[in-house]
């Protein structure tokens, strides 16, 4: 799975988070920040993680979720690392 594919899947998930303005999802890059750029409420990050687990067929390690950075690239790294370990 490529990084672009993960980002595309992540954008689909973010479209279901109704607190995020959909217009902000048109130019997502690896450096986009969930909190400062997208305005994602912190309580939604765990919901995004749960949806990502289902979408990508993986199960995150709890410690990895705790240590997750707030940029898109951090999330992509976590998905790909978890997939590689499984």
């Amino acid at each position: 799975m490529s990084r672009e594919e993960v980002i595309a899947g992540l954008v689909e998930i973010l479209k279901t988070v109704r607190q995020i303005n959909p217009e902000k999802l048109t130019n997502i890059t690896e450096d986009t920040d969930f909190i400062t750029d997208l305005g994602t409420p912190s309580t939604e990050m765990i919901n995004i993680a749960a949806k990502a687990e289902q979408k990508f067929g993986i199960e995150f390690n709890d410690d990895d979720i705790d240590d997750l950075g707030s940029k898109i690239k951090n999330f992509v790294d976590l998905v790909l690392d978890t997939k590689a370990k499984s």
Partner: protein
Amino acid sequence: MLERKVAVVGMGGAFPNCANLDDFNTKLFSNKSLIRQWDEAGKYGKNIRSKVCGFITEEEMGLEIVLSQVLENYPETYLDKLDRIPAANLATADVGSIWAMIGALDSINMAGWSAEEVQSENTGVVIGSGGAGNEILRKAWYSFFELGKKTRTSGSHNVDRTMVYREAANVACLIKNKGICEAIGSACATGLGNIGYAYRLIKFGIQDRIICGGVEATSLETFIGFDGMQVLSRGFSPEESSRTFDIDRNGFVCSFGAGIVALEDYELAKARGAKILAVIDNYFNNSDGDGDMFYPSFAGQQRLWKGLLKDQGTKPDVVKVHGTSTPAGDAIELLSVVDILGESGYHISAPKSQFGHTLGAAGAVEFIASILMLQNQKVLPCLNSVKLNPELESFQQSPSWTGPKKPLEAYRDLIPQLSFQKEINHITCLNYGFGGTNSAISISRDVA
């Protein structure tokens, strides 16, 4: 301590089988029953005895459920198709909290409060509900305990969407008031209990204005709980199921809804030219003190009335009773009212006969129905009270009975079967709850 006068200046909510407050008003005074067959209960066949309910669909409230992609049938959030509530607030709300938020916005709009007034340190929110957030919890607990999923599978909003004071919290986060935010719980007296508590907060100068009321969100669990007690009405068509005081009544109709009102210090409301919907004369509440969780207490209700009326001597034009349509409850309540007020000079209204028992919302929804009676100058009926018992109730034949010795039929003239016009200046509202809790409030038309 200086005691301030308190005005009702706004109202709103969610009403069974109604699109909004105007619809509720029209249907109530057209003598309509708002009770329908409830397919949610019907799905379970003979496992649920009662199948009738005063419910509200999401569509009727302009809402749409968004189901989770991760957990089957879990209502992840709601869409507000009428754009009243922002997505961030919908995310933290169960459907009852959404009803409360809509009711709060309608109440504030009707009150005409400015943003500055709403967001003041002197503005409070006091809203409670009867049940838990069962529609959320059922699926969340199933995911964890039965499916063996991780806690995060059911998402991060199971606490805020189900905690005891979720309606108050959600309303406060929506309107951004800086005063008190809390919930009173007293079973089926919850709705009136919250309004009464809010009244006291303003009366004693602790807050200037409060959004208050009660909620009972749609919940099959709540329905099942009462059905299991065998206290729900059965055997009648939906519109004939709730029949307060009728000889054939056999239980209450479990309903859902929300009643929200805006209270304000009377002088402040008058000074800004607000329309005063009603003035609250007094609120009183007590406990039966007889150790009985369920059975109504004549003595407890006598003490309730005495506490409410004190030495005022003003007889209400209408008594809005709790009147659930249960065999014992209705009889004791009617005899207790007659014992205090006599056999004539007022009328009795039982709004539950039209929309069922909205439980934690009942006191607030019926408070709103009472204000509508003041506005329309019409008494709401005791629908389906076709025949009253011509014989004494069994408890009236006990040597220890100290109340009226006539059968219920003797008080027919107090109990209208249809709505009718008359001059209404004062109304007393009564609500009781499991645990032997009793609440009463008296309201009047503004004459100043």
